[in-house]
């Protein structure tokens, strides 16, 4: 056999190996040096999960879409920094409201250009609002936000820089509504050139393109990968001062990828799951953003479950005592959770109407045991020497798959139920199946769910949570209904008098907390990982990201 061919092959392999090693060491050397300096100094990079569904303000409803829309477009009014309580001028320099609380007049800025150079004036404003209402996005139905108090006749052009809006009904949150992404001002000429307005149909062009007056314009969107925004040179706010020139929002499904990106400096900002915040805590160059949020975590009871005992409020009370709240806070959420006493989260008005903010239920198996025994649910079924209640019927605990926190709470709840002599099954399924179970079946007894605010008012919590289906509530199909609670909710909603509102919410609380349709577990802390070289960031739950404020140093 000829040896030379083999020998040369071997030589090739060795040469390749040496090359690889040399390349590695040389490259690692230069990268190590770069590590001390800021990566991509004029670019803001965020690694997040999920990606926008659309870039059209008339369709955007999910937070990823609204994020991009908020930065590409301006609205008449806006929020500043982390201030959620005050609304500031944006495209509107100032505004007046008539004494009837219905007629609002906005005076627009004169110097505003769209990113394509078109000037912005009152025509665009009227066009934008009427577009949202006419398109009435079939995919997201986000138009309901404007339709709460506006219709096609509401907006009137007084002069090119003055707009009058006449509301269909009084609405306290009107300005807040105008700060929402759906009220963004689009360029009439651009939209008309690209499909215009078709009633009840989303504009396909606007989904992936757009011309706005915002500080950034769309550079490119690679689906399932990244959205890149570049600075809008026509921006009326100007580019003096420190700003990032480019914004990159990446969608990365895998948590480890996001962590590594943050640690090696590719990412300036990243969504990190609670369980992984320990990885970035106390690391130089990294910072954990921690802010209170209005996101609440709930455990729902199906009061009309095929397991009949779930209809008994004593059973649900006992289960409320059997849930280990402290363990949920410490172990499932790594302490990034704040105990929630009732429907209304801390930070919102009327929080204190809920037993002064103190929880009624705490983890107390003895109490749960006592309630069940008193109600006649004794340990009656012998299975291998263990006595179970409910004739061994299992309570079905569900959570949606992939949610680590809920899985921990479910398995820990199951263990507590076993101690209490209640058999249970923990199951998980995908989100569409989970929703089907919740909304179309009674084959569940306990489910986890979260809720985020649409607007900053207790009514956005109490009505969907404990209002009856007949009263437009019961969003989670727990089947729970109480006429008195409904009337208190309506009182609270339509009264402007704070004391009366407080009284109504107190009364409602006292009823629903003793006949619980859900366990109020807690209120999540908003957490994100951030490089310390990123400046200008502040958390605003209503306007989560405003890149114009950011710079790296």
């Amino acid at each position, binding site marked *: 056999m000829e040896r030379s061919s083999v020998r040369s092959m071997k030589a090739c392999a060795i040469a390749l190996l040496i090359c690889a090693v040399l390349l590695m060491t040389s490259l690692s050397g230069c990268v190590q040096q770069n590590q001390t300096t800021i990566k991509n100094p004029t670019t803001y990079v965020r690694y997040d999960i999920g990606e926008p569904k659309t870039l059209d303000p008339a369709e955007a409803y999910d937070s990823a879409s609204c994020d991009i829309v908020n930065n590409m477009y301006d609205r008449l009014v806006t929020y500043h920094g982390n201030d959620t309580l005050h609304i500031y001028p944006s495209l509107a320099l100032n505004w007046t409201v008539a004494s009837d609380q219905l007629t609002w007049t906005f005076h627009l800025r004169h110097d505003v250009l769209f990113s394509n150079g078109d000037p912005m004036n009152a025509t665009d404003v009227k066009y934008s609002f009427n577009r949202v209402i006419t398109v009435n996005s079939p995919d997201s139905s986000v138009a309901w936000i404007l339709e709460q108090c506006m219709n096609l006749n509401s907006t009137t052009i007084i002069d090119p820089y003055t707009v009058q809006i006449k509301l269909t009904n009084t609405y306290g949150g009107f300005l807040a509504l105008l700060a929402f992404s759906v009220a963004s001002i689009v360029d009439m000429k651009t939209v008309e050139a690209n499909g215009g307005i078709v009633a009840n149909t989303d504009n396909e062009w606007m989904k992936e393109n757009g011309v706005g007056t915002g500080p950034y314009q769309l550079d490119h969107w690679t689906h399932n990968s990244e959205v890149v925004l570049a600075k809008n040179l026509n921006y009326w706010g100007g580019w003096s001062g420190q700003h990032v020139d480019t914004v990159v929002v990446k969608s990365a499904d895998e*948590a*480890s990828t996001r*962590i590594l990106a943050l640690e090696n400096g590719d990412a300036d900002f990243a969504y990190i*799951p609670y*369980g*992984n915040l*320990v*990885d970035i805590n106390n690391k130089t160059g990294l910072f954990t953003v921690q802010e209170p949020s209005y996101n609440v975590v709930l455990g729902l009871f199906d009061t009309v479950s095929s397991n009949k005992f779930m209809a008994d409020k004593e059973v649900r009370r006992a289960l409320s005592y059997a849930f280990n709240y402290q*363990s949920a806070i*410490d*172990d499932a959420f790594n302490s990034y959770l704040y105990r929630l006493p009732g429907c209304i989260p801390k930070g919102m008005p009327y929080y204190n109407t809920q037993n002064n903010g103190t929880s009624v239920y705490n983890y107390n198996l003895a109490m749960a045991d006592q309630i069940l025994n008193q109600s006649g649910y004794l340990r009656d079924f012998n*299975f291998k020497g263990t006595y179970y209640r409910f004739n*061994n*019927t*299992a309570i079905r605990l569900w959570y949606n*798959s*992939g949610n*680590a926190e809920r*899985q*921990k709470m*479910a*398995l*820990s709840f*199951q*263990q507590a139920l*076993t101690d209490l002599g209640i*058999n249970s*099954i*923990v*199951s*998980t*399924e*995908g989100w569409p*199946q989970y929703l089907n179970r919740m909304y179309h079946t009674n*084959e569940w007894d306990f489910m986890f769910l979260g809720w985020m605010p649409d607007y900053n008012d207790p009514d956005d919590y109490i009505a969907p949570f404990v209002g009856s289906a007949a009263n437009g509530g019961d969003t989670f199909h727990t089947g729970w209904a109480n006429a008195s609670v409904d009337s208190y909710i309506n009182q609270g909603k339509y009264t402007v008098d704070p004391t009366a509102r407080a009284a109504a919410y107190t009364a409602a609380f006292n009823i629903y907390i003793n006949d619980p349709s859900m366990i109020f577990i807690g209120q999540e802390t908003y957490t994100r990982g951030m490089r310390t070289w990123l400046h200008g960031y502040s958390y605003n739950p209503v306007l989560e990201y405003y890149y114009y404020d950011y710079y790296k140093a």
Partner: protein
Amino acid sequence: MLHLFRRSLLSMIGLVLILFLIIVALFAPLIASEHPSYVEVQTEQGTTRVEERWEIHFDRKLQSPSLQHLFGTDDYGRDIFSMIVYGSQTSLRICLMVVIISTLAGIILGGLAGYFGGVIDEVLMRITDVFLAIPYLILALAVAAALGRSIDHIMEAMIITWWPSYARLFRGQVLAIREQQYVEAARSVGASNSRILFRHILPNSIAPLIVEITLDLGAVLLVAAGLSFIGLGASPGTAEWGLMISEGRTLMFHAWWYVTFPGLAILFVVLGFNLLGDGLRDVTDPKLRR
């Protein structure tokens, strides 16, 4: 043949690994330091099944390996060593069930197609074409998503994706052997179809199949782990290696042991099956011997 096998170091390592797996699975209650409880529960279909449950001790979660917890604890405070030991039972069960059932299906269908040919063959081959044209992971994913999350369903999903390749393999074998002289001879003396199939064709075509089966036993574990990774694995709370890896992977930066030990367990078992399969192939295929 046996001495050839014995001489091959790699094959012996494979054999030892698999024997070790079997021993661990058989004597799990003696080896593990902690044990799950088994609870009988009713399923939605009204049948009962026994569920494996591990006690949660949040007070000792994510402890690094120590004498008390050889492989550390997971984020539920469960002893990873014990879970791996008990997980060997699950893994072995998954491997064997999937491979045996899909082999049986493959033998029956592939045998029929290969032996009788004609329309049966054509139809069956088109069906296998259809199944093979869908990437197995996506098909298994879809089936598993439809059935719901549990080990049994994962096994069913994998059987559905696995049988067509066996049917093809076995059909090819039967086609080749059908033309052999001893089969002709049996046919000429009037042996019945079933006799020819079971007495002549089956024993002669099974040898290459066994090699394939051994190699696939490992592949099954990898696919199961892949399904767990995407989020459709064993039901939560059970000790299944794939599930443990997929749950531990996000915590690898501060709890390396959580993902490492189940990962090594899978690696060694799959390695074992593959080494064994390779060894068997070398022994049964005289052409590769010198």
